[in-house]
């Protein structure tokens, strides 16, 4: 177990190094001279030289790369170009609002998705099954933008069921007042693809020998579905949920932007708009690291769920 974790962590090193290199090449080489972006259109050569010296851009590339690696290792990404706030603080303070929306969203999506997938797979091939699948395909085709625009206008602006946008200081107020509508929209958008995927996972298991055996020995259908099928389908479902967690953090960027939620996603969009490279670099590296760690966690969870899985 410990050996497995250690080896996996060791294997992450080259990938992490690749991410750092990729980000470095993108921003320091392809991205052009940041001094011109920072100084604006009207700038004197002295001002630009000054900025270049402050940023360390006049150093040779290997030195700059070393500075970036040191930043990653010490988790100190300098200051935001736009606000002067330390990047570490930016990420730390934006994490809370993002999680306030994303944790309930993920939990609800998984629970509803699994329950519906079992129900639909139970009546597989029927008219209900086909109707739900067609509804899912249509639902997936509607842009998330349209869901947000229409729901925000209809439910919040016209009917006044939710605040149109905003964010408070207290966690309870945020969760109960400002988060429900973004969560509802997130569910509307993500439930259709999740359901389709989970249904295919469940269908893979329904035809297994063990399920037939369970039926043959006279177990009630309900118990077969919930215990025998779900337990086996849990592995791909866990993988999906875990693999999606870091992407979710960013994936909610449109929701955060529309509803004025000061989260990571909105911060990334703002940073791209302002060419705030330190923030984008830091978020990219952190999310890549998180993705790798969550994949490792998914593997560890397999064993907890399914004792047949051997971590070798």
């Amino acid at each position, binding site marked *: 177990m410990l050996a497995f974790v250690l080896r996996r962590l060791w294997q992450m090193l*080259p*990938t992490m190094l*690749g*991410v750092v*290199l*990729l*980000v470095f090449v*993108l*921003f320091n080489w*392809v*991205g*052009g001279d940041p001094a011109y*972006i920072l100084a604006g259109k009207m700038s004197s050569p002295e001002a630009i030289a000054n900025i270049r010296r402050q940023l360390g851009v006049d150093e040779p590339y290997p030195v700059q790369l070393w500075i970036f690696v040191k930043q990653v290792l010490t988790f100190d990404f300098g200051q935001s170009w736009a606000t002067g706030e330390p990047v570490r603080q930016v990420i730390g303070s934006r994490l809370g609002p993002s999680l306030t929306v994303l944790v309930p969203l993920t939990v609800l999506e998984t629970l509803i998705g699994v329950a519906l997938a079992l129900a639909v797979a139970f009546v597989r091939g029927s008219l209900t099954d086909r109707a739900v699948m067609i509804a899912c*395909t*249509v639902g*997936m*085709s*509607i*842009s*998330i*933008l*349209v869901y947000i*625009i*229409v729901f925000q*206008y209809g439910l919040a*602006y016209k009917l006044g069921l939710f605040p149109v946008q905003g964010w408070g200081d207290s966690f309870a107020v945020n969760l109960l007042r400002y988060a429900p509508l973004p969560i509802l929209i997130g569910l509307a958008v993500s439930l259709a693809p999740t359901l389709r995927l989970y249904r295919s996972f469940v269908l893979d298991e329904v035809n297994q020998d063990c399920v037939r055996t369970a039926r043959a020995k006279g177990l009630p259908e309900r118990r077969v579905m919930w215990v025998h099928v779900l337990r086996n389908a849990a592995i791909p479902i866990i993988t999906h949920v875990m693999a999606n967690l*870091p*992407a979710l*953090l*960013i*994936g909610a*960027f*449109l929701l955060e*932007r529309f509803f004025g939620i000061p989260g990571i996603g909105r911060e*990334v*969009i703002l*940073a*791209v*708009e302002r*060419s705030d*490279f330190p923030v*984008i670099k830091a*978020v*990219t590296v952190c*999310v*890549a690291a998180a*993705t*790798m760690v969550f994949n490792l966690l998914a593997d560890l969870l397999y064993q907890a769920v399914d004792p047949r899985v051997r971590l070798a």
Partner: protein
Amino acid sequence: MSARLNDDAAGLWTLAWRRLRADRVAMVALAIVAAFLVMVVASATGLVAADWEEEVGINYAPPTFVGAEPAAMAAAAATGQPAPDNPFDPLAAEIRALRAQLGTEQAAPRRATLPFGADKWGHDVIKKTIKGGETSIVVGLVAALVAVGLGTLVGAVSGFYGGIVDDLCNWFYNVFTSIPSILMILTVAAVLQHKGVTTIVLILGLTGWTGPYRLIRAEYLRHKAREYVLAADAIGASNARKMFAHIFPNVSHVALVQLSILAVGFIKAEVILSFLGFGVPVGVVSWGSMLNEAQNELLLGKWWQLSAAAVAMAVLVTAFSLLADALRDALDPKVKA
């Protein structure tokens, strides 16, 4: 008996087409996608919607299928009563004449039939939707071609040569997939300061190669030791020939399915990027830029531009996804007809 022999002789593509033909949903989806493609070609060659920027209606003309001027349009047109004449104005008579002339000039275009209404500048929304669709669909398709081309090339090299080349490509794959695609897209968008249709195609194409790469690489691994490749080797075919003249036709169905799946995803992604202002430049209309405009219009109760772009996109993407699903089923060699 002879029919069975013919069946066996039929190639992968003939069999796949036969399976696709039998699927009624797939045929309807194919017809819809084809109709959209015809529309793109017609729009790109200037047959339709070339004059979408012409002012044919009044600002925010509501949708109407009736040719005559309906009451709603007349009411919308009456923007403020003309001020009463100033008795001391020496130019009063000329102003009255100019106003009358203006009235006759405005009356003519107002009679145009606008089934989907007009936008803020009096542009016909249906023409705008067609023009916007051209941008969105072309960007989606070309970006998907770039991504599949890149993924196929890297996947072919990686799977065929194996060894250190494969390790290197896998390392690249791991690096790219450890960054969520939407963050990757935004990161590249931040770096490429120049906005334009080419940029957005590059962004989507360069970030979308990982899916095709993984599948094509697996296919090349399977195929490279097959007898026909050994036979090609025996007659002295070069590696490039073996990879692309011999193996590629046998794995091209994977590329085609990936192409259709990616195109759907990229059409959706282009709309989001354009909406955020990282996509098509000002002056180019796409479904994303239409939704962007429509978002504020909705607060004024002008719902038609939003509906037009949203419905056109939903219909295309639904049809395209259904087609991609059917194509995957029809081309899967494991499924027997």
